[in-house]
């Protein structure tokens, strides 16, 4: 219990977690508004052309719930990962990690608490934001362009509760990566480049790359969130979630093993 309180005080007593939270909210909701507005514009253009008697050469963009929460699950979770990684690497940077391990010699409990606390916070925040993103996208798109934005069907609901699950796992991963690398720049670069760039580079490797793609962790996470990106997976969304969770568990286990062996 003491460890949880200590980590909570640490998190709330510097500014950067607050700024990260503000950024997550702004990006999550802002992107939903952008999606809603662009959907409306596209739909209006489509209707105008039909009204003029032309046959439009494009389909109107009717965003789904998964599209609307894209700002939360995409940018929001990335910033959440930065927050989580910094919670560990800044302790290494300023030497506080030694004070932490002096106060709590059971190093496992420090990492588990950090991951649990930030993960729980991130899950709650993204869960609330998905509803906010839905409401904003729906409002800005209007009833016609927002026709596909519905809180019904298992796909739609998975977009809502899938995001917090994904956010939690990403935080655990970020705490582990921060612990393993011990420095902010490296940890953040890896955490951002891996999902945004590295996994997509496999597409360049032809058949070999295509065969690997269904085994890449973030590809699987996206599959769970309802964006399979044209990859042919060997399992369904839940299989993908289990795969991603197992990947995170392995990295976190490695971090626990390392932090106990290593000199602080």
């Amino acid at each position: 219990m003491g460890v949880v309180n200590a980590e909570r005080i640490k998190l709330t007593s510097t500014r950067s977690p607050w700024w990260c939270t503000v950024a997550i909210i702004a990006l999550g909701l802002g992107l939903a508004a952008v999606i809603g507005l662009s959907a409306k514009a596209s739909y209006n253009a489509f209707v105008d052309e039909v009204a003029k008697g032309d046959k439009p050469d494009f389909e109107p963009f009717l965003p789904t719930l998964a599209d609307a929460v894209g700002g939360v699950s995409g940018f929001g979770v990335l910033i959440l990962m930065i927050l989580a990684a910094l919670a560990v690497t800044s302790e290494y940077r300023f030497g506080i990690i030694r004070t932490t391990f002096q106060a709590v010699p059971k190093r496992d409990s420090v990492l588990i608490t950090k991951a649990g606390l930030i993960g729980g916070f991130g899950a709650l925040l993204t869960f609330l934001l998905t509803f906010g993103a839905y409401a904003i996208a729906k409002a800005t798109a209007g009833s016609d362009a927002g026709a596909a934005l519905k809180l019904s069907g298992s796909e739609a609901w998975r977009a809502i509760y899938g995001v917090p699950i994904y956010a939690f796992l990403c935080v655990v991963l970020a705490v582990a990566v921060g612990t393993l690398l011990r420095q902010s720049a490296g940890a953040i670069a890896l955490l951002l480049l891996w999902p945004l760039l590295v996994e997509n580079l496999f597409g360049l490797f032809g058949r070999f790359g295509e065969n690997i793609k269904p085994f890449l962790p973030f590809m699987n996470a996206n599959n769970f969130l309802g964006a399979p990106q044209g990859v042919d997976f060997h399992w369904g969304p839940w299989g993908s979630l289990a795969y991603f969770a197992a990947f995170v568990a392995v990295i976190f286990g490695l971090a626990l093993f390392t932090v106990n062996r290593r000199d602080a």
Partner: protein
Amino acid sequence: MIEVRGLTKEFGPTKAVEDLTFTVQPGMVTGFLGPNGAGKSTTMRMILGLDRPTAGTALIDGKRYHDLKQPLRTVGALLDAKWVHPNRSAKAHLQWMAASNGIPMSRVDEVLRLVGLTEVAGKKAGGFSLGMSQRLGLAATLLGDPKVLLFDEPVNGLDPEGIVWIRKFMQRLAAEGRTVLVSSHLLSEMALTAEHLVVIGRGRLIADTTVKQFVDRSSESTVRVRSPQLDALRSALTSQGLTVREDGTSELGGALIVLEATTDVVGQIAGGQGIVLHELAAQQGSLEDAFMKLTGDDVQYHAAGIDEVMGGAL
């Protein structure tokens, strides 16, 4: 009480600490002395469970640090005063530490008052001067009212006022019956602060003794004695087998330098003969010289001789 038994730490092929055994007793300040790079910090980190020893054990009141429940209530340690988040307030820094060991929050205000930081408690620790950081570090060690305290080079870089303050602070803690281990590479500082000395060089134990014994044993001690009955005194001393020479520097005249003697011995002889003394003073060779003599071979990084470097340019 801290018990170090056969403590060894290897970093690859280099042995930072080698088979170190000593005990730190409660109720007095124990100086942990050695040149830079002798392994003092590494030893302290192993005592605190931060570094994993290659061999040996370090016990605090019979327990490994790792096995202490709420360790801040047993051991307070200040290894580096700059180990704080620059954007976190002094108060918040102490609050998280207190919370981690179930120490009531009221204690935070108490220790801030003890070290005189109440006024700046809400300020960011990153803006603190070294002296203030050092005080904050001290406050942190005192949070759990621990029986055992460790300080690594606490006076480094402090101004004279700060040095005296810290010295008195540590002596007070020891007087309260706590175990206090203070590391330093400055013998002169330790001679003023500590009662007992653990001296290491290149990771090995050189001496484990009282400060007085260490200084007596390792420095060439001479006694300067002034008397109106100089001739009688000279013959009394030489008849006891002591070597005596005139003190040429004395303006008052009539002073002798007695080699390799203590004031106790000289006073005893003079008293026995009923000789009046106007001055009886121990003259110790520089403490640093003594230290160098003892640890000479154990300094890890020898500086090239000045003559060598200047190549006769002087």
